[in-house]
């Protein structure tokens, strides 16, 4: 019961001493993680993309994040192509 109450608190309301039990109370199963990702995307989408007068900013931030993720994934291959004095 106590852990469920701690989960419903927002991060900014959690005290530093309560942080480990708050993190431990999260659902780390695949279903729980998927739900967390879906909720995070829904919140972002409703705040930045699905606005009354939306612009390119909301979707651009996501695409920029995708480019960064793509760079991280392909870094192992790209590091061999860096500018070097001697190869």
């Amino acid at each position, binding site marked *: 019961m106590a852990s469920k109450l701690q989960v419903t608190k927002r991060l900014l309301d959690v005290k530093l001493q309560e942080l480990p039990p708050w993190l431990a109370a999260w659902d780390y199963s695949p279903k729980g993680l998927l739900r967390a990702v879906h909720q995070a*995307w*829904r919140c972002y*989408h*409703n705040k930045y*993309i*699905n*606005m*009354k*007068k*939306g612009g390119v900013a*909301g*979707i651009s931030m*996501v*695409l920029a994040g*995708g*480019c960064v*993720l*793509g*760079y*991280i*994934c*392909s870094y192992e*291959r790209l590091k*061999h*192509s860096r500018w070097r004095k001697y*190869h």
Partner: protein
Amino acid sequence: MIPNLFEIFATPYLLKVPLMWLAVMAPAMIIFSPSQHLVTGRYILLKKWTMKQFIKQIMSPLPTHGYKWAALFTALMITLTSINMISLLPHTFTPTAQLALTMALAFPLWLATVVIGLLKKTTRSLAHFLPEGSPTPLIPALVVVETISLLIRPMALGVRLAANLTAGHLLLQLMALAVIHLPTPMWPATVAVATTLMLLTILEVAVGLIQAYVFVLLLSLYLQENI
């Protein structure tokens, strides 16, 4: 150091986990997320308008009982368009340049149209093997040619999309390498190649949209013949 030009088509990995599924699903889910609100904003309105125009264009030649395919065609168009557009960004992976994906989409859908035609309107489907007004001496050859034409359709459908995307991305990669590696005294050549690269990028945007549309249009034409 000779770079391997085809490395851009390798499956992306993050911490030894292949991200092919994310690369295929994420573009459509990001760009075409449904709205949680009853009253939507500009972005959703723009998407709805685009999809409405597309559905009217694709489904108008089909008879009424073919309209049940509208959801499939729309979803296919959304997936292919979003994948093609997002793959033009730097350091992103192009799932539609993989023959495995395009053939996996083309072959079952083509087969579905053929099976529907053979089951529901057998005579009319088989009549497509001989065009109207064919000269009598040419009939055997024409039947063979039309049969081959029918059987080659899924391959053409899949390979067309994959080849166009692969060729386009490879050209972009080559020209970008040329711009980077040209020496400084040859700056006019660099400017010329960079201008061509920009024009080619605009062309690739158009090719991505057109190829996605052609894929779905051809499927609707095959369905039109058989429904």
